């Protein structure tokens, strides 16, 4: 049980590349903190610095009231679950879990109690004698969790632990991890690039980009009030529609402000011909439709706005807007529609996207 505190943590590689540019946050006792961001944003590096697998070139990391900058990974009292599980291939499930305890000189009887308890929780009791290669992906994942649990550490560190599993198992394991963490109430830091995992697991969500923290907070707060356009487009799927406030069509519908970018989530649009007081209406021509069953995504190009090419792969091209419609009934391709969003659903950002502007 412990707090994990990061104070102005930096990582500069010998070549001069600055991977982590000064990060501060605190994970309270028993809290589940998720670091989320695109690949290369430094989230795994940061986690490995907490684990002690990467050196810290600036700032302080503090686990349970003790500065651990110079402490060996084994002595930090943390346990880590790796993306590829990193189980010892030649050891049985039992020995995989017992190894770390034996290295610490724990009595064999105590080891046995702890391993059987972990195996019971994780439903691995019947597999203790098997080798990792005889297990399925989900079972290996559980052994990796078990190896962390038996140590009863101050903190669990998870490095994208679910990304090697298939989609269905990933959801099941996600729920299991959350339940387990609640039950053990061990402070946890979890790294993922999957915003859905991030939203569902986190008590505290840390959104990272290019070595800096974009926003820290409760996941729902971040979803409802993204601090920057990066967070706005990263949290939520499909991403928030971001439109520069150049055209008169948009400007005339909004009160004058310093804002330069308007953001509206696909799920906040309604297709209607009626006007919503204070809201924004867009005229769209339907370009493509994705029917997922429970909902339908309508890709429309804005009338009167020049179409362009997306700045980054994966981004929407300028002039294109996604609208989510509940159910499987949507407009037809080529149809002209009018999408309206209410006033309280609008997000305004400064022109450089670095600041949120309240209406």
């Amino acid at each position, binding site marked *: 049980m412990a707090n994990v505190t990061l104070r102005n943590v930096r990582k500069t590689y010998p070549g001069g590349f600055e991977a982590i540019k000064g990060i501060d946050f605190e994970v309270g006792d028993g809290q589940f903190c998720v670091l989320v961001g695109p690949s290369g944003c430094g989230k795994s590096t940061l986690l490995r610095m907490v684990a*002690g697998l990467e050196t810290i070139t600036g700032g302080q990391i503090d686990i349970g009231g003790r500065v651990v900058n110079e402490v060996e990974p084994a002595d930090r009292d*943390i*346990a880590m679950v*790796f993306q590829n599980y990193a189980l010892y291939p030649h050891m049985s499930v039992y020995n995989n879990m017992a190894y*770390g305890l034996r290295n610490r000189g724990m009595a064999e009887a105590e080891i046995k109690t702890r391993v059987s308890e972990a195996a019971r929780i994780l439903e691995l009791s019947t597999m203790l004698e098997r080798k990792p290669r005889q297990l399925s992906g989900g079972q290996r994942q559980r052994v990796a969790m078990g190896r962390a649990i038996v140590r009863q550490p101050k903190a669990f560190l998870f490095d994208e632990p679910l990304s090697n599993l298939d989609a269905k198992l990933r959801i099941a394991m996600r729920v299991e991890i959350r339940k387990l963490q609640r039950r053990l109430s061990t402070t946890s830091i979890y790294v993922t690039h999957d915003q859905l995992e991030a939203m569902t697991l986190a008590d505290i969500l840390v959104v990272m980009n290019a070595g800096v923290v974009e926003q820290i907070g409760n996941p729902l707060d971040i979803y409802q009030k993204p601090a920057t356009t990066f967070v706005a487009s990263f949290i939520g799927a499909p991403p928030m529609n971001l439109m520069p406030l150049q055209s008169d069509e948009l400007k005339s519908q909004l009160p004058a402000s310093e804002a330069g970018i308007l953001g509206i989530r696909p799920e906040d649009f309604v297709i209607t011909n009626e006007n919503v007081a204070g809201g924004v209406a867009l005229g769209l021509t339907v370009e493509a439709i994705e029917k997922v069953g429970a909902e339908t995504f309508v890709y429309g190009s804005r009338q009167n706005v020049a179409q362009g090419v997306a700045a980054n792969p994966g981004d929407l091209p300028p002039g294109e807007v996604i609208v989510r419609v509940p159910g499987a009934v949507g407009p037809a391709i080529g149809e002209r529609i009018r999408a309206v969003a209410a006033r309280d659903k609008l997000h305004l950002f400064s022109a450089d996207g670095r600041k949120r502007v309240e209406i």
Partner: protein
Amino acid sequence: MVEHRPLSDFIAYAILTLGILIVAFPVWLAFVASTHDAATVVGGHMPATPGSQALENYYRAVFVGGSRTSREPVANMLINSFVSAIGIALGKIFISILSAYAVVYFRFPFRKTAFWIIFITLMLPVEVRIYPTYKVVADLKMLDTYAGLVLPLIASATGTLLFRQFFMTVPDELLEASRIDGAGPFRFFKDTLLPLSVTTMAALFVIQFIYGWNQYLWPLLITTKDSMQTIVIGIKKMLVSQDELAEWQLAMATAVLAMLPPVAVVIFMQRLFVRGLVQTEK
């Protein structure tokens, strides 16, 4: 998908059989010769089927030795060969796995240089450096000793390279998990790397055992006492005699005996050997 047609099967088997016959015929001939008496073998009309002298020939070869030529019983030569082959194989595994561990897992100054120096020794087999090596061994007073037979042949890069390649396929996370589990460098080596390297060690053992067993030039140079000669040298000596007929039946019995240990090693370690060279499963 390869089609199975009777004709192509027939051709394939015919070629394989022919290959086996070409390889096996001399071996068979050696075996047959080892079972006849001296007169029959030398007479020029040796039958193609085994004779009746097998027991006597093998008994004489193993325990008595060719009375006129090599003077030393084969049993002793077998022991010498065995000790040096095993010594070379185990010694090589030992220094290769340690040097590969150092080169792959430790960051020390001139790590690359160290690796390249090891690598360059590939270009310097015993035959090339034979004079300086002989001088060193002689100065260390290791002529006519097992150490002299074994040590110079241990030092080469093949094993280091093999283990280095294997270590580089071991995921880094395994090392990191070990560090978090509280295993230091030695524990990681002993508990994780060694057990994972078993098949690679087996492959290297097979290769090096046969390499050591078949050594000719080096033992020929440094062994002068009959009691230290290896079986390969022994066969050679049996065939050279100044004024007597070579005892071909004994030489052939010795040759057959010399073949057996490498064959046994390959047969018993075949499965591990193949896995060690093609291993991908981690």
